[in-house]
């Protein structure tokens, strides 16, 4: 299997004031097509910096990063922007949707910056298709403030999918959601992964990481553990379990 993401002895050092901060120290990591990886670690472990590097938002100070076979360590701002647009889809903790802009237009946003020319009708069609994948086609005209947190995150996922990226990057995607909605969102991710989409997710919640296939644990800027998940949680089953538990609570009260 070809590696979609290949990090080779990647370092990231921040020069803040007089002290150098070594955020990432020599990480070597390969993620293959079709994987579903959770990068875990306490705050300060370097997992967010890793995410920024993988997401082409930041460049490594040292080492090489190959995205889809291309060395991106030395590309300039605009080239990185182009890569993010074509090859990466972002899902953030805080959803980061444009307010007072409909779900459909939020999903269309990445296509505004795509340099192969799509007609407005084609953009619309693709955006609606992406909303169908996350099950929100009927809410296309709603604005973010008319949607629940889970729905907003699903719109964000649709936005991340719309340019058919090589990798979907999720930075604490369930951080702002309650348990039930978190499981729903993980269900969406599992479904997408089943269809062959590579997903890399940063989280510090163990039970969320349990929905992925592979857990990479970081500490002090280094990878300390990299294991396949053995007893993977399946979102559908978890949801049923949650429903039963809820009903049980109702019966007892």
């Amino acid at each position, binding site marked *: 299997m070809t590696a979609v993401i290949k990090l080779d002895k990647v370092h990231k050092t921040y020069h803040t004031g007089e002290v150098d901060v070594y955020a990432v120290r020599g990480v070597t990591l390969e993620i293959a097509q079709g994987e579903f990886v959770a990068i875990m670690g306490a705050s300060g472990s370097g997992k967010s910096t890793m995410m*920024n590097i993988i*997401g082409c*938002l*930041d460049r490594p100070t040292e080492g090489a990063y190959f995205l889809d076979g291309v060395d991106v360590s030395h590309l300039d*701002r*605009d080239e990185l*922007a*182009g890569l*993010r*647009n*074509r090859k990466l889809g*972002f899902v*953030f903790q805080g959803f*980061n*949707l*444009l307010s*007072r*802009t409909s779900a459909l237009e939020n999903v269309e*946003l*990445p296509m*505004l*910056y*795509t340099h192969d020319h799509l007609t407005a009708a084609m953009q619309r069609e693709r955006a609606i298709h992406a909303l169908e994948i996350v099950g929100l086609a009927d809410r296309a005209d709603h604005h973010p403030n008319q949607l629940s947190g889970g729905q907003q995150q699903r719109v964000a996922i649709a*936005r991340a999918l719309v*340019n058919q990226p090589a990798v979907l990057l999720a930075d604490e995607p369930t951080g702002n959601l309650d348990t039930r909605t978190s499981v729903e969102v993980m269900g969406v991710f599992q479904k997408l992964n089943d269809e062959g989409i590579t997903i890399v997710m940063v989280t510090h919640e163990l039970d969320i990481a349990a929905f992925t296939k592979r857990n990479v644990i970081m500490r002090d800027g280094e990878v300390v553990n990299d294991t396949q998940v053995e007893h993977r949680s399946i979102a559908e089953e978890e949801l049923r379990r949650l429903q039963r538990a809820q009903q049980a609570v109702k019966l007892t009260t």
Partner: protein
Amino acid sequence: MRISATLRMAFRALRRNKLRSTLTALGIIIGVGAVIAMVGIGNGAKSQVEAQIASLGQNVVLIFAGNWNSGGVRSGWGGAGTLVVDDALAVAREVPAVTCVSPEVRDRDQVLANGQNWNTQILGEGPDYLQIRDWPLDSGAMFTDQDVRGTTKVCIIGKTVANQLFPDEDPVGQTLRIRDIPFKVLGVLHPKGLSVMNTDQDDVVLVPYTSLMKRISKRTNINSVIVQSSSSAAALQVQMAISDLLRQRHRLGPNRDDDFTIRGQQEIADAFTATSRIMTVLLGAIASVSLIVGGIGIMNIMLVSVTERTREIGIRMAVGAHGSDILLQFLIEAITLSSLGGMIGIALGIGSAKLLSALAGWPTLVSPTSVVLAFLFSAAVGVFFGFYPARKASNLDPIDALRYE
């Protein structure tokens, strides 16, 4: 990114903060409105002066009696008394390229008719006077050479005098009295309006210059001579030839100053239009200051907007917007704001110029050039003052921008 999509985005962003956008645009609206109105007033004044200068006649050269200077005492204009009718006749006879000449004698007197009386200017002129001044008669006919030779008691009156003395009847054929001498009215002049000096040109009685000199003023010298040259190109040569001729006739040695003054129409026009041109420039400059203040307002609000929308900028960059896309987005927003303001300002400026003409009676002239210039200038203000905030937005780091609270 397509321009149409960027424009749509700009309009949406501006609509989102209607009050703020309106107030920001107001700076430009007032600025452009002021420029249009002020330049309109200046141009109006200029065109009025030009019209007044044109009312002097075509290719006119004026000879004024000069001053004398005796032991340091200077008499003032016309004091020399050395300009005489023969000078005027000599000019007509001897200077080439002169088509018409009219000696001019001025006096003020009380004019009586119909039991009414009116103090007005009496001009003694030659029969070619109206032709030189390009001044048609509303009714009647001009006096002739015969009237000049015969010092006839006839006159032509201006519209103002006609209205004052003969309010209800046709003045032609009537008689008016100047110093108890009856003059027969031969014709009434077409109204000409105000002169360059802001005097009423229609408040006048024209009589043959001989009649005025011999019968009323009892004098032998004249005030000035109006000369018409065949073309504007010949005017300068005509002026020099007249100067030579008069110096010779007045026996002025090489060390003596002229006892006359010659003014070409072009000089008069230049002197007066220069004033109104300076006024136009000054008014325009003052108004431009308010346009620049409006531009600073745009810059201010765009800076606030960039800060407020830092997160939005981060999102756009994360999904693949280049720095240039963000730059363009904010720049177009600033330009949209300033050009919309400019368009409304143009309407406002034209409106207030019209209002000023209507209420204050000032002539205004809004030229298409000033409208186009004001619009381009307002768009340029948007580019100039929008660039810095837009550049600031485009240089944001996507990671910091996404984290911005």
